[in-house]
Structure formats: C-alpha cells, structure tokens
C-alpha cells in the first residue's frame, strides 16, 4: 500500500526551481533511498514533505489525506517524522528529555506515558548517558537522540536526512543495523544519503534527483548502471 505520494511537486525559490515536478510514491514498510548531487533538491523535498516549507505547486498525499497545506506540527502528529542533516538537539535538555518532547507532542501522550515511551526508545537505540545534557554527548549519541525524538512521535514514515554524515565506519555500521531494525518494526523509511555503500546496504529502492527532477529510479544495482545517473554524477562522455 502506498503511504506517501507526491503529485507534480514544485518548489520555487524566486527564480530557482529547487524541486521541479517530482512524482514520488513510497509504499509501506519500504526503505527508499534518495540520492543526487549537491543542490539536487533532496533536503528541499524532505522539507516539503515534513511541512517546514510549502510547495509552489502540486499535492502531497499522506495516508490518503492531502497534507500539502497543513503546518509542520500537524503533519508531525499525523505521523511524518524526520531528522535533520545537522543534529539539532534541544539545548538545556538531557538526551532523555529531548526524546520526551517527541513523545509528548508528536504522539500526544501525557507526561507519564511519554517518559515510559522515551525510556523504551533509549533502550532500543542503546543511548548511553541519557541523563546527560546534550552538549556533553558524542556525535553518535546525538544522532541517536535525533532519531529517537523522531521515533518518539510514533511516525508512520521516517525521513532520515543524512544521518550517517560525521560518523566513522564503525558507527556507520551500527547505524545501518539500527535503521534496518526499525524497518522490521514496521516503519516506512526514506533515507537521504551521500555514502553509496549505505544506500546499497539499506534500501529496497532508490530514486535519483538532479536539478529537482527524478532522473532515475529502481533497485540500487539498476540505478547505478543508468547512463543518466552516471552522467549526472560524473558528467557527459565526449
């Protein structure tokens, strides 16, 4: 079943067309990879879906509801969770409290239930030092807190915007296992990533964006051989 669908999605920033007519479908329990060169419109696409910016044209249908004009906090409650490319923990809160925020407002729980859920998520993600203020955490823990907050809002779809950036190879492997285990729990996930190895390991299907358009989609192996993709990354052969 298709859980998220965009129809002819367009976002213009003045003269710049960041997303140009994207038709996207994500099925339930799928891990979709989104790749593309810098400036291809990947993060803009995530911002459009999560509601931080609104599309110039087009529709976003999530769980059979048109959400393109709904504000971000409503979409979070409906079940669109996301993380940010640069980790943005809420300063002054501990790791645990950061996750509680997601549970309180995204999942509409009361304080007691939210704390219960947050400590389950801390266990699931194996976050150490959960009672420490966020400025005393390692990058890996911060990334986990970021995912934890999104998870705590009990999303139906999770948009991961470059979660592997800044991790060493060991930590990247831990993270890959983590994301896979989330899929097994029934989540639908979209990963934006630069590291091709991660895309290969994780995704069921890949879409390639360039200049705001989807230029190729399919399983990882097929996409990699697509001449359009090769020329987008490496340039045309003379």
């Amino acid at each position: 079943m298709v859980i998220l669908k965009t129809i002819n999605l367009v976002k213009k920033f003045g003269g710049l067309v960041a997303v140009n007519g994207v038709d996207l479908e994500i099925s339930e329990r799928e891990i979709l990879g989104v790749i593309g060169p810098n400036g291809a419109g990947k993060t803009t696409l995530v911002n459009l879906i999560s509601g931080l910016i609104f599309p110039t044209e087009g529709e976003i249908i999530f769980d059979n509801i048109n959400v393109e004009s709904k504000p971000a906090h409503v979409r979070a409650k409906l079940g669109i969770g996301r993380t940010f490319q640069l980790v943005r923990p809420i300063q002054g809160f501990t790791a645990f409290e950061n996750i509680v925020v997601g549970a309180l407002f995204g999942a509409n729980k009361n304080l007691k239930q939210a704390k219960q859920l947050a400590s389950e998520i801390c266990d699931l993600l194996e976050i150490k030092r959960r009672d420490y203020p966020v400025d005393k955490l390692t990058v890996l823990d911060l990334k986990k807190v970021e995912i934890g907050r999104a998870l705590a809002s009990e999303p139906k779809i999770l948009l991961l915007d470059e979660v592997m950036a800044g991790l060493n190879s060991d930590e990247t492997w831990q993270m890959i296992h983590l994301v896979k285990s989330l899929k097994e729990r029934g989540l639908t996930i979209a990963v934006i990533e630069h590291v091709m190895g991660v895309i290969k390991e994780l995704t069921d299907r890949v879409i390639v964006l360039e200049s705001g358009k989807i230029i190729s989609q399919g399983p990882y192996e097929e996409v990699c051989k697509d001449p359009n993709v090769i020329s987008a990354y490496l340039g045309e052969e003379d």
Partner: protein
Amino acid sequence: MKKTIFPIITILAIVLLIFLPYFIGAYLLHVLMTIFIYMTLALSWDMMLRTGQLSFGVAGFFGVGAYASIITCSRFGFNPLVSILFAGFFVALIALGLGFAVLKLRDIYFSVTTLAITMVFSVIIRNMPRLTGGASGKVIPNVIFNGDSTKTYWLILSLALITILISEVFNRTKIHFAINSIRNDEIIARSSGINIFGYLLFVFLISSVLQGMAGAIYTQQYGFVSPETTFSLDFLLLPMAMALVGGIYSTWGSVIGALVLGFASEYLKLFMPYGHLIIYGIMIVLIILFLPKGIYGTTKDKIITHKIEKKSLSE
C-alpha cells in the same frame, strides 16, 4: 524522605506568610506588599522569556489593568475586588487581540513592538480625558478595604502565590517541554509536533493577565492613576532586573531576585536617601557580571555540575 519534606516546608511558609501581618510592623508590611507586586511582574515577565520572547510590554499591561480597575470602580460603581477581576479579563481581551499580531514577530522586533504598544496605551489614555482623567490622572474616593493594610497584604500575597503556582505548573508539566523547545529551536519544535503559535498565545495571555491584575491591585492600594506614574518604565525595568539578578527561566530565581533587590532598595534608601540608587546599580552590575545566571541559576548549575562530576568519577 525529600519528597515528604518539601510540601511540609511549602505549607509552613505559606502559613507563616499569611499570619505575618500580626507579627511585623506597618512599615515592613508595606515593603513586603511592594515586593510581592514586583515579584508578580518579574515572574510573569520571566514566563514569557522562557518561550524566547523578550517582552517590554510589562508596564503597558500593568497600566491598562490599573486604569480598567480604577475606571470601572469610580465610573460604573464596581466593587474594588470585582474591578480587579474585570481588569484581568479586560487585559486578557487586549492581549488576545494584540497576540495575533505581535506573536508573529521574533527577537528584537517583538521586544520593540511590545515597548511601542506600552507607549501607545499611555498616549490613548492621555487623550481620553473624560473617561481617564487625561494627563492629570484620576483619583478614587476610597482605597481598597478602606486602607486596611492586612487585608490588602492578603490580596497581594494571593496574587503572588497564584503567580508562583502558575509558574511552577509551567515548569513541571508538558508546557515546560513545549516552551523550552520553542525557545531553543523553533524548527525542531514544529517538526516535533508543537503548535508554536498556540503555546505562545497561551503564555502571552496568562502573563499579561497577571501583569494587568498586579496593576489593578497596586492602584487600588493607592487609589490613584496617571499616565506618567502608571505607565512608568519602573514597572518594566525593576522586574527585569529582579529576574536577572535572581536567575531567569525559574520560579525561585525571580522570587529571590525580588526579595533581594526589594529589601536592598528599601534599606539602602534609609542609609543614604537618593544615593542608594548608585549602590543599587553597582549591585545589579556586580551580580550580573559574576553570577551571569543569577543567584539561583548559578547555584543550581554548580550543584548539577558537581553531581555530574561525581557520577562520571564513579563510572
């Protein structure tokens, strides 16, 4: 152990405060009343600051509350207590209307607009002489409770206690997580499902109503309003100084700040009339320089850091 002691201390403190007028003189009682009024203003200003919005509109809502109470009392014959409640209601209406406009603004734009609104209130009131008495102000024939200072003290004390209670509710419930997130990162707050505008409007309403009611009680105590004294920036700057000295983002910071600066200004005044302002100013500068998070905030930080260090040592 700790959990059972705390409510007992709180109840004892409240009982002590209620029966205080029977033990202390009229002068000290008067000082306390002023301190509690400023405490209410400081705390309500801090409530708004916790959402990240630096409001300069304290004196404005204070003044509108004061005028609303005096006018309904003298013109329409409201009972003083009813007029204070009406002032709260009236300020709520105004804050609701203004909130839709000013709460879209952020940072310095919000601050300057709230300051401008204070000025606009005072200009409007100055230019409605038939209703407000214009520039010369308005006097009511009798002060509240016929000048019974014990009853007035109880009234002011209850407002201060209600403010403390609201502030603690804000700091202990779901609201705490919402406003702290909004202050730190609005984008995170939005994508975590927090209705930012809703929470801002709610806190703005509550804090404005408290400021309006403080203004109403304060003028009922003296029976006099005028644009200069009622919209005086003292009602903005002193509460801000108190909250900063005590420590922002916490209930007890503002409470301690109001007590310290309130008593300091009174007793310095006795030692050197007018010269006390110099020492008062130096005191504020020194505290903010050396205890940047305020008296309460810095002490609390020290304790927390100490705990973490102990914990990481034992790990």
